[in-house]
């Protein structure tokens, strides 16, 4: 052995311990990743059998026993049409509400950061972002459902909008803040008023960040269940009116997953889960492509 290297049991133990801890750290990563792999695997394996064209064009089936399913009875097969239309309707409306307000707030945080309102509001915004969504649902329940005496798509959409709002505001603020101050100054030095500077130059420079934020918010809203349980309720058919109970894909997963041990219901739930996961994956991957290209530093993750 060389004379530089340290000898003795203590030093040996330090080396061994270092290796053990490195191994544990890697183990932690493996453990963290396993559930993701398992869940995706199961969702694909169990959900794929349900995916047919009919799955997207029919409403859910009635519960069937194994015997009924085996006999090929038509009433045992169905799809998630009601959920697709309901989710589109409510997420769509929510986006229309959340985007203007969220972008507006984000602009205020970015362009007038010194004001007291900015500080208070952006702090509140962060708190809201992490809030239990069931309480947001209950808020809308009291505000809208109890006053209109019905579950409704409007109530569902409003609760989703509140959930989307902080995400849009935060990513708007962060992308606008990335636009260099020199750009703003150059524009105003040319005599262009501040409001035009913000609209024409700042926002258009930061627009892919904004788009990213909106996509992420949509992804989040599309997966929310708890608020919809207490605001939109459920319907076995596509939406019948803005102030009527409305189905959604997450609710289908909840309803048909916990509704009892009917094989066709379970398959429907898995199929809906697969459809939702694919949708989320597409949204998140396109966001990663956006971010990777333009904003290495912005963490727009929820």
């Amino acid at each position, binding site marked *: 052995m060389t004379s530089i290297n340290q000898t003795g049991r203590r030093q040996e133990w330090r080396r061994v311990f270092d290796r053990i801890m490195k191994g544990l750290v*890697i183990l932690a990563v493996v453990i963290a990743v396993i559930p*993701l792999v398992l869940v995706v695997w199961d969702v694909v394996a169990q959900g794929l059998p349900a995916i047919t064209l009919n799955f997207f064009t029919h409403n859910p089936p009635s519960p069937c026993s194994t015997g009924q399913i085996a006999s090929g009875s038509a009433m045992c097969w169905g799809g998630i049409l009601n959920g697709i239309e309901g989710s589109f309707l409510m997420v769509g409306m929510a986006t229309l509400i959340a985007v203007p307000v969220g972008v*507006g707030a984000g602009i205020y945080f970015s362009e007038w950061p010194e004001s007291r309102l900015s500080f*208070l509001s952006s702090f509140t915004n962060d*708190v809201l972002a*992490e809030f239990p969504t069931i309480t947001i649902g209950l808020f809308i329940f009291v505000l809208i459902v109890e006053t209109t005496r019905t579950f409704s798509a409007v109530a569902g959409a409003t609760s989703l909008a509140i959930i989307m709002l902080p995400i849009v505001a935060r990513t708007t603020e962060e992308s606008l803040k990335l636009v260099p101050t020199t750009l703003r100054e150059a524009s105003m030095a040319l005599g262009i008023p501040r*409001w035009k500077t913000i*609209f024409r130059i700042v926002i258009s420079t930061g627009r892919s960040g904004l788009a990213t934020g909106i996509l992420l918010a949509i992804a989040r809203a599309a*997966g929310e269940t708890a608020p919809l*349980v207490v605001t939109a309720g459920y319907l076995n058919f596509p939406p019948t009116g803005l102030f009527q109970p409305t189905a959604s894909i997450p609710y289908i997963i909840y309803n048909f997953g916990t509704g009892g041990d009917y094989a066709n219901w379970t398959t429907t739930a898995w199929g809906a889960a697969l459809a939702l996961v694919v949708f989320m994956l597409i949204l998140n991957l396109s966001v990663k492509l956006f971010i990777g290209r333009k904003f290495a530093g912005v963490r727009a993750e929820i």
Partner: protein
Amino acid sequence: MTALPKEKRSSGSKGDLVLKAVVGAAAVGVIAILVGLGVELTSGSWLSIKTFGLGFITGSTWNPPRDIFNVFPFILGTLITSALALLFGLPIGLGVAIFLSERAGRARGLGAALGSLVELLAAVPSVIYGLWGLLVLVPFMREYVEPTLKTYLGFTQLFNAAPFGLDLLTAGVVLTIMIIPTISAVSRDVLNAVPNSQREAMYSLGATDWEVTRKAVLPYARSGIFGATILGLGRAVGETMAVTFVVGNATAIPTSLISPGYTLTSLIVNQFGTTTDPLSDAALVEVGLVLFMLALVINFFARVLVWRMTRSTKFRV
């Protein structure tokens, strides 16, 4: 020096005022939402507050047909499942953060890929974790894990019950999965904020990689890591759907970790619409109010801790 032409300034500043007013209103709106949350939840639960008073959270009977609504068992359920989630989630989440921040620097591609994978964990909606939990995890817990726990540790009250798989322990496991991305993402940022000179100082004294992490990096980052833990706690307390599928939905006080129970969140979702009298509605809204206050306290606390550690806007979680 010539004076600036006055005409140009006034039209610009009018537009400025309008813009500022409009986006300022949006900012006010954010605050209004949080305030409105508190107000509406209080008013919606007023009937229940008047009827039960403090007994709402200290009593243990939840009996809808008799119009008795007390939520202590469910507070217990929330506390137990969240504690389990932190117990498992903190070491794993911190381990992932250490990997991504300290080690993955060497193997850049692999580190980034794994980092993205863990973030993808957070993108899967909780209802899907719930479904998977019910149909895959519960049978696993029922057949393998819980009988083993009962056999070897059943002498403690903790594991002394019939293992059905639909219980607080399984809910704790699912919650662990849900909060790992939160803890690891925040911790990773916190660890990255530790100045490199601290690491180098420890290395130059002749320390191994782990010793550098443990003695120089983690102590420096400890308040931020604590903040990450609290944020993880907030996430666990507020999680609804993943828990609903697997927690067992029992209204009695749970006697062991493998007994079924309820959390505050899953109670609301499960009991909603089962009765239609105003008192039960008000009671469920009051549960929401309790959650609201819990979430505010946890969130506020966490944010202050994390903010103190890393004061840059780029960082905000």
